[in-house]
């Protein structure tokens, strides 16, 4: 099975590098961008299976990127996990409304983040619970 490609968008190159190492170790192919404009261009060219997106970005912040992605037919269904230092109380709902599939505040727990990535990529069907006897 070919490796699934993840686009990591964050303006902190050190963090991008760390994410790349961790995702590669988890058997994903990684492509990166450090600003909003490049993120969209890169998404169009690379066609990632999933995008990890920071909110505070130069040249078009995370919300602009989310909006653009929603308007590009080929990318509208690509799951986007927002990973931001911003306060979830004022940003989570807004990000989800703009089309993100999950919101994690930095620093995020690695296991939780990896689980969310796997869940967003896989079929992830859950069985409904049964009525207790």
């Amino acid at each position, binding site marked *: 099975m070919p490796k699934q490609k993840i686009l990591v968008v964050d303006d902190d190159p050190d963090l991008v590098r*760390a994410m790349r190492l961790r995702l590669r170790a988890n058997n994903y192919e990684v492509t990166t961008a450090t600003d909003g404009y490049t993120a969209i261009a890169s998404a169009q060219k690379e066609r990632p299976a999933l995008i990890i997106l920071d909110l505070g970005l130069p040249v078009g912040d995370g919300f602009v990127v989310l909006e653009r992605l929603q308007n590009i037919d080929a990318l509208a269904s690509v799951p986007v996990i927002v990973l931001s230092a911003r306060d979830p109380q004022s940003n989570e709902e807004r990000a*989800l409304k703009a089309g993100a599939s999950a919101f994690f505040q930095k620093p995020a727990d*690695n296991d*939780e983040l990896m689980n969310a990535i796997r869940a967003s990529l896989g079929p992830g*069907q859950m069985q409904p619970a049964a009525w207790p006897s």
Partner: protein
Amino acid sequence: MDQLTTQVLLIEDNPGDADLVRLRLVEGNSSVNVHCVSRLSEGLASLDRETPSVVLLDLNLPDSHGAETFRRVMEHSPNVPVVVLSGQDDEVLAMKAVHQGVQDYLIKGNISSKHLERSIRYAVERQALLRALEMTQKRQLEFKNQFLSHVSHELRTPLTCIHQYVTLILDGLAGPVNPDQGDHLKTVLKSVNQLHAMIRDLLEATRAESGKMRVEPRCIALGELIQQTVTMMRPMAGEKHIGLEIGIDQRLPLVNADPDRILEVLINLVDNAIKFTPPDGAVMVQACVVEADPSSVYVSVSDTGRGINPEAKALIFERLYQDADSVDNNRSGLGLGLFICREIVRLHEGRIWVSSEPGQGSTFTFTLPAYSLAKLLAPVVTYKELLRPSFVLVRVELTPLQVPPRGNWKEMWQQSLETLRRCVYLDKDLVLPPMGTSGAAETFFVVASTDMPQSGVMTARIREQLERVLDLKNKCSLTIMAAPIELPSTVSGQPFLSQSLEEQVQTLASQVTGMITTRIESKQSRPEKRRRDVN
């Protein structure tokens, strides 16, 4: 309005007194404009229309008397200076007035025009200074809160980088790590996690202080939350050989509370209890109902630590309070934990307190409002003073196809709940408020006054409506089930039907609670979103 003219609103019912005051005012000062009304209601109406420079206020009016009069004026227009003109020389009342913010208290008989003019001028000046001071304080508080929230955001960025690289090395992704190096890195990670917790507390405390902390109450079974807390904290207690026990009242009602927030409070209290208990001690988490206060649930966390001295007891819930000689200096924090707990409990309209004897351990107790199902049920399950003949509990469960769910899940289930409410008969069915269930699924319950054969019509309607309204197929699977609510034939040895109507509703409510909680507690605990970093 002319800025140089003093606009006086005179509220005085005696025409003679009013004329006298008007005369005194105009005598020494040409730039004063007096508007006179004779009732408090007219005065307040005038204040709605325009803001005078000062209000001159008689206390005994046809529609208000004494202290009540100035209280109402100041409540209505807190920024307008008030000078009382009273017929009685009552120093006690005068002091009361001044304490509540009245600028001056003058006795009608003794006023010269010079005196009155000066009093008004000073009142206006003082009020302006007071307002300026309030504005400055407000701006400072806003600045401080913005600053703190900015700082806590900025601190996260470098912290994230440290966290990422430390975990990269620890997980062996940057080459092999020898055991000693691994230990050192774990120490670094522990400190990173502590720092993370402090940043979070800082932001929470700032929010609490500026009234921006939010809670989303749901209907929850506390037993499950307590269980979850204990499971999370057991490793930490185990390290110190501290026993961690649970005692939950079997008849514990559901409570109206935000499950994430209450989990935060429980973790904080248990964390403290473990922190302040010496090895081989015990920590106990209990939940019960107190007979004298049946509308609350009492939750307590007690320890066998060295207790809290009486002076500290009064301060312990304040911001930045820190115990001078903590048992374990390794685990000191910012001193915000209990302050945050208190604010969370307050937002739930509960209380939190500590009882302790030095050397005998401490017990922290908080209350939460019990969820009164019987009260909600009463109007729909009865008809003409009788309990309806049969009831069915309908369960509607939305299970997201992906975990975490894609898109705005909250909006999705809220819309579903709205739709559900439109599918029932308001006079005989009750859609219960959202339940704080575990797992990713969202579950709603309907108590329907119908029997099993008939309930099929309702469940079919619910399914049809939910599927029509929502784009369900792509996001979640829908399960709708119904089960009869069995009522006992006897309660405490007495025939069920001999009970009063109120008791019958109560019995029905406990049957429903039982059916719901069994289901809640039978499920796996959910993955923690706001988990504390506990190593």
